[in-house]
């Protein structure tokens, strides 16, 4: 727990993640259900991750505002989970309760190819679940979903995590 600098290899994560996806794939009937399962697993990881990242920061403080919490998640927590801060954090101009975190090529999608019968599946639902779990246990309940935005100049697509705060 103290060893914040220990990293897990990307291939180890990719292998574990692919096993997890295959495990759930054999137990569901639609792509929507698979996303829900990944989201659910992510939520359980989220609460634990938040406490771990917080105690390593040694500040002994909690976040009180939504913006501060999202900044903590998109920078400090992101750094701990993915080795980098999120590409950007934005607030929606139409709806004051909505925020977006952009991440080009999240590690859940790097090595995944979607078969045609699971057309709209986005494995980043796992990361969306982690975000939702973190926000929920910190008393900032939100609906978090992952969306793929095709980028014309890149082969992979940009992923946007849409966060709709519930209150």
């Amino acid at each position, binding site marked *: 727990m103290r060893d914040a600098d220990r990293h897990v290899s990307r291939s180890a994560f990719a292998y574990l993640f692919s096993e997890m996806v295959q495990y759930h794939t054999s137990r569901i009937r639609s792509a929507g259900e698979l996303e829900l399962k990944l989201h659910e697993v992510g939520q359980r990881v989220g609460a634990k991750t938040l*406490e*771990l990242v*917080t105690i390593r920061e040694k500040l002994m*403080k*909690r976040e009180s505002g939504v913006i501060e919490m999202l900044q903590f998640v998109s920078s400090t927590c992101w750094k701990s989970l993915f080795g980098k801060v999120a590409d950007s954090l934005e607030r929606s101009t139409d709806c004051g309760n909505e925020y977006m975190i952009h991440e080009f090529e999240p590690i859940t999608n790097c090595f995944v190819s979607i078969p045609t019968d699971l057309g709209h599946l986005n494995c980043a639902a796992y990361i969306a679940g982690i975000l939702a779990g973190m926000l929920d246990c*910190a008393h900032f309940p939100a609906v978090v979903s992952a969306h793929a935005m095709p980028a014309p100049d890149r082969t992979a697509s940009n992923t946007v995590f849409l966060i709709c705060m519930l209150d």
Partner: protein
Amino acid sequence: SPTNHRTMPMLLIVGSREPLYEAEFSTGPQSKTEDTAHLNQFILHSAMDMVDDAAQSTNNMYLRIVDRFNDQNVFAFVTAGNIRFLLLHEGRNEEQVKAFFQEVYEAYVKLLMNPFYSYDTPICSTSFDQRIQAIARRYL
């Protein structure tokens, strides 16, 4: 209540719906009746509203003394995931209790890292219990 009884300090860990863990720390020979045990639990549970009020008013995890009952103090600590630690203790040393809570927090996060323990569920681990007893012996 009879003042020649020394009451044992008591730690309560509370989740979103229910208490998750409870421990009493004996600090030497003393007598304890059934009434004392129930009274301590009552004192801590009735302090929960004060804990929530205090948690709203500050960003700190350590909330210091949030309530008093006779000669006993209720100290509180709230984690990032809103798990509350409550300590019932006759002592008044806020810095000592802060150090106590920080070690309890560390033990709690280590427990959380166990994949077989789910967040916000009752704690049944005997090694966690032993760790907490050892921390209490050092600080209380």
